[in-house]
């Protein structure tokens, strides 16, 4: 193990390390801690320029209650869920199929189709912006959740295919050969042999996609406008315009907006990290 395990170092260094660890963490998360403290402060603290001191009074419940009852926040949150969940399902389903096709079968165009997905996944959003907005307008889906979902599904299929294909490549191919010898049809091989083995990849990809889509901002402002369809990332900016200088509410709103992917991460940590670091080890 590198660096030298702490148990094998001098006692003095062990103590230094152990005490430095929490200190480093607090420094690293300082911006977030500040927002968390802001969100439980009463309004008067900001008027009295008590920005970084201890809250004069705990107003956490009142602030968060206000975010949920007096603003459009609940609607934005609901929209985010309505956008994120179908996208995750759609992109994962499509890429299970494309990943299977590219991971199992050998044909000439295989690598080129694979590279099309990979390259497309890397392009800057701006090169797609005008035509995609136009296409969405023509389909009558501008400013709808469906329009945003369709684009996200299509675009994320690129990354998801890369992920699924590499995962399937690492499965033991003998299983498929054995099934073929048994005379099992290709469709059934997909459904009964490969798909059950893909469960960890599906879990990892789902949590990753959830975070990516939830946090999307660019496409939200390009393809939607207004409370009825915008997700929370776009909504938070109008929320901020509404509560300009009401830092306690803006902080509480930001924390609410950030919470679902954070919860997802902590609940599914193992899958999340496995997904993010696929390929980081040979």
């Amino acid at each position, binding site marked *: 193990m590198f660096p030298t395990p702490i148990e094998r170092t001098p006692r003095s260094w062990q103590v230094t390390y152990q005490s430095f*660890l929490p200190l480093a963490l607090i420094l690293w998360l300082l911006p977030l801690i500040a927002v968390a403290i802001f969100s439980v402060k009463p309004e008067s603290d900001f008027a009295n320029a008590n920005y970084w001191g201890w809250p004069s009074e705990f107003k956490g419940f009142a602030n968060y209650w206000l975010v949920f009852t007096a603003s459009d926040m609940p609607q934005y949150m609901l929209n985010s869920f309505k956008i994120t969940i179908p996208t995750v399902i759609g992109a994962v389903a499509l890429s299970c199929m494309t990943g299977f096709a590219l991971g199992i079968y050998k044909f000439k165009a295989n690598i080129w189709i694979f590279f099309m997905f990979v390259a497309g996944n890397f392009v800057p959003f701006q090169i797609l912006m005008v035509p995609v907005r136009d296409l969405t307008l023509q389909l009558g889906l501008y400013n709808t959740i469906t329009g945003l979902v369709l684009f996200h599904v299509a675009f994320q299929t690129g990354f998801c295919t890369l992920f699924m294909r590499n995962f399937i490549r690492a499965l033991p191919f003998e299983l498929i050969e054995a099934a073929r010898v048994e005379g099992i049809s290709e469709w059934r091989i997909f459904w009964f042999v490969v798909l059950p083995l893909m469960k960890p990849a599906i879990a990892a990809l789902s949590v990753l996609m959830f975070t990516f889509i939830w946090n999307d901002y660019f496409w939200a402002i390009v393809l939607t406008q207004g409370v009825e369809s915008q997700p929370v990332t776009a909504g938070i900016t109008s929320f901020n315009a509404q509560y300009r200088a009401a830092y306690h509410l803006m902080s509480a709103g930001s924390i609410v907006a950030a919470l679902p992917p954070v919860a997802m991460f902590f609940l599914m940590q193992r899958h999340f990290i496995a997904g993010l670091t696929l390929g980081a080890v040979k």
Partner: protein
Amino acid sequence: MAQASVAQDHQSSWWHRNQQQITPWLFLAPGILFFLFYVIFPIFQSFNLSLYEWDGLGQAEYVGLYNYEELYWDEAFYTSLKNNVIWLLLYLLAIPAGLFIALFLNQTVTGIRLYKSLFFFPFVISQVVVGLVFTWFYDPTFGILNVVLGAVGIPPMNVLGDENWVTVGIIVAGLWPQTAYCMILYLTGLNAVDPEQIEAGRLDGAKGWKMLWYIIVPQLRPATFIAFVVTIIGALRSFDLISVMTNGGPFGASRVLSFYMFEVALSEYGFRMGYGAAIAVVLFLIMLAFIAYFLRSMYKEEKAR
């Protein structure tokens, strides 16, 4: 009757014979169609659109390479391009910083798992929220940055209002989640480092920086490659932070190509779709150089298998 059954038989055996050739295409069809319509075709449409003057509603007017000529004389374009280069260079600091934190956390003391996930935390949060948090961090009236600077005797500064500092200030905000990402890549990589090589290195007297550089870093190659890919893509995609923190200001000093393109095509500055598309084409060509390099590396690896 008999004929029909023969035909059917013929059909099923044809399917049976060609099953393995046709199945992949059936599985690929929906994904490819979606991807073509929403990603591949739009790239070509943007190239085409960059030759037109179009406000998004009326008739598009063909203007040849005029948009590119205008770009050539456009000072805001050069500011954006320069900022893109700064982003690319400074964003890469996330890689050594991530490696450093990963080395710091690669221990087995109690609670280290929780430490690792809390250090990773910033990556999970939306960039919109990160931008907001850092805007307050830099705020000239109450930002904690000036509190800290004041404590060491440096006069207060308005980072996001200063043309010379604004881009660096935004990049620092971006480095926060990006470093966390690189850290997690390296933590995974460090897990897989061969302990025998480390022991052999120790016997040869390698330690500290030498050990890191000659024995550890080479083994972290796959993690480094991914860190490079995601960091470069992330740097060229920077948009959310700029939009939230400064909206391109002050006086356009923090624009990058992706933001400038959006501004030109879809904001109160007018709906110049053709000109926006021309900017997007330039950004795309820059990215294409990197994409080509990434694909070449992947291709070599595929061949080697």
